[in-house]
């Protein structure tokens, strides 16, 4: 039995679709070109997931988005793989081209303290216990390395790139509540290689960069993303699931995050309030217009092209871990 079930071309403006067997309980649906970080493919993924949630396909139990894919879990006694693919194909034809979508999207403002003491502590432990000669550590932190890797003159330019855009949650995964964020402003695209080998400890609340994605660590876990700083706790798993509706904390796909710079002392105070339940997380319900996004991206395209010539040459001057 082949791994690829079938491929299909959707009407104009929509990504091509590849359906893949993922065992007898899942189908993996992939959208668009394989190697491209394409927000439009991700918008489309979210819209398909939302449509299925709103009008369920009998036998489908859940869907889980990725950057350009959707994992669909089904009960084979209730729907065959073949019928499932047909039902998904029908949904795909109903979803309008990404360029015409306006999608529900919460905006969440989070404070960030760059180069905080827990990030430095994690880097310090890594140097002592795992890799003393890690090229991605300069001056006891990853920030100076990431700045050079992206061709910035100094770390303030890196901070500006992080602060001057909203970050789009492409999907929540890896571990509970962990968002994978892409910048909505193309001028703020930054990238970094991952740790090699991985780091054994990362503080809860740590903000890291790996590949094109920023992640926030909801838990104390190992990690391999370059550490930039720290924010508030984002996943209150222990107390109860009320956190899902009342508190911030579990990021949904399609949420936007805006970082606001604070000093570490202030962050520690805000974190204390969060743990005491006294902090009011800043969450606005809202929508996001993909067509406005695309218009903005195309308006900025010249600026982006010239800006991205610099990092390409910078990367060559920097050692990869």
């Amino acid at each position, binding site marked *: 039995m082949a*791994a690829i079930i079938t491929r299909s071309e959707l009407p104009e403006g929509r990504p091509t679709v590849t359906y*893949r*067997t993922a*065992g007898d*309980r899942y189908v993996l649906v992939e959208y668009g070109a394989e190697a491209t970080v394409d927000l439009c493919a991700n918008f489309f993924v979210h819209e398909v997931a939302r449509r299925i949630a709103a009008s369920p396909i009998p036998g489908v139990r859940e869907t*889980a988005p990725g950057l350009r894919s959707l994992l669909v879990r089904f009960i084979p006694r209730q729907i065959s793989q073949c019928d499932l693919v047909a039902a998904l194909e029908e949904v795909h034809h109903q979803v309008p081209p990404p360029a015409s979508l306006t999608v529900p999207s919460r905006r969440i403002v989070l404070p960030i303290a760059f180069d905080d003491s827990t990030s430095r502590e994690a880097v310090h432990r890594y140097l002592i216990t795992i890799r003393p000669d890690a090229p991605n550590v300069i001056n006891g932190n990853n920030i100076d390395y990431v700045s050079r890797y992206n061709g910035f003159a100094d770390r303030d330019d890196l901070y500006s790139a992080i602060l001057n855009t909203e970050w789009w949650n492409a999907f929540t*995964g890896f571990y509970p509540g962990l968002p994978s964020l892409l910048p909505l402003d193309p001028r703020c695209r930054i990238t970094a290689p991952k740790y090699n080998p991985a780091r054994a400890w990362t503080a809860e609340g740590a903000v890291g960069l790996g*590949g094109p994605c920023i992640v926030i660590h909801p*838990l104390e*876990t190992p990690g391999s993303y370059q550490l930039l700083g720290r924010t508030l706790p984002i996943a209150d798993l222990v107390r109860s699931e009320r956190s899902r509706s009342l508190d911030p904390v579990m990021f949904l796909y399609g949420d936007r995050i805006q970082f606001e710079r604070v000093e570490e002392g202030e962050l520690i105070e805000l974190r204390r309030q969060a743990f005491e339940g006294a902090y009011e997380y800043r969450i606005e319900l809202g929508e996001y217009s993909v067509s406005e996004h695309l218009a903005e991206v195309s308006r900025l395209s010249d600026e982006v092209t010239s800006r991205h010539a610099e990092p390409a040459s910078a990367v060559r001057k920097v050692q990869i871990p």
Partner: protein
Amino acid sequence: MTVSGDSFTKSIPALEIVDPGLQTTVQDFPGRLGLQSLGFFPSGPADHFAFRVANVLVGNPPGAAALEIPLGRFHAVALHDGLISVCGASGVDVRINDRSVSTWEAVPVTAGDSLRCSVARGPGFRLYLAVSGGIAVPEVFGSMSTFLVAGIGGLDGRALARADVINAHAKGAQRKRGYRLPLDLRPRYTSNWEIEILRGPHADPDFLTESDYKELLSTEWRVDVSSDRAATRFHPHQFRWARDRGDVTGGHPSNILDGCYPLGGILAYGDTLTVLGPDGHVSGGSTVVATVAHASMWKIGQLRPGRDTVKLKEINLDQAAGLDDHMQFTLRPQQLEPL
């Protein structure tokens, strides 16, 4: 007798832990299923077959919460009269006080009885201990299963420790008559397993070459000693790959843009094949070359790290449905011998 909760969720102390063993946890089935888009794999038993059998033998619903005991070596004291059953890994000496009792059947206990399991000396790795009534711990995100990485579920989100007291639901806790699973319906354990998989989602021809895929099926994979509930790792092996290098996401040809993984997915994590277990990570940027059939996942839970070997056998969807039917048949109470 301590009674906690309201009249619908009344629970009574069932076991006091004397020696918890390696890493014994409370699990239920199917666990925290349905939350993958929030980043949760389901947790639950690594061997969902022996687990459910243990429950039905003492009269519980098959998914009720019970204990997962890796390797064996466990000692507890019963705190009320009722039934227990131990299923799973073979070569285990289970004793109530000084009397040896059988596995795969319900055994009556009275308050004060000592219950000991030896280390599992035969094939298989995990034991399941069910108590009549079913273990009662608070649900977290819809399940009582322990998820150690996040520190949630089970008893305070952790493995059991000496002097822990485990409660059971009062309803049915003092049941007297249980069942035995007939010999011919018991799963056959071995040290050299054959495990059924379905090809893909990322196999040949676009990711693996045709001969890579043949190697996947012909290789006798050794189960690495670092295997656990999150991931079962096989010995490193270099495939040729159908492409030179990975995407923008990394240098290795096994790398792709991040997406969600199926439970039981066999990842090419660089040069190490890794089977995702119930506590695994839900997404990432590795190709998934094959996926273990749902009805065969119990075998992954019984692999002994550092000792067992695995050959993968490709089946199709019809065969997977057949394995499912067989498993459902075995779990029907009509198949059990009343005691």
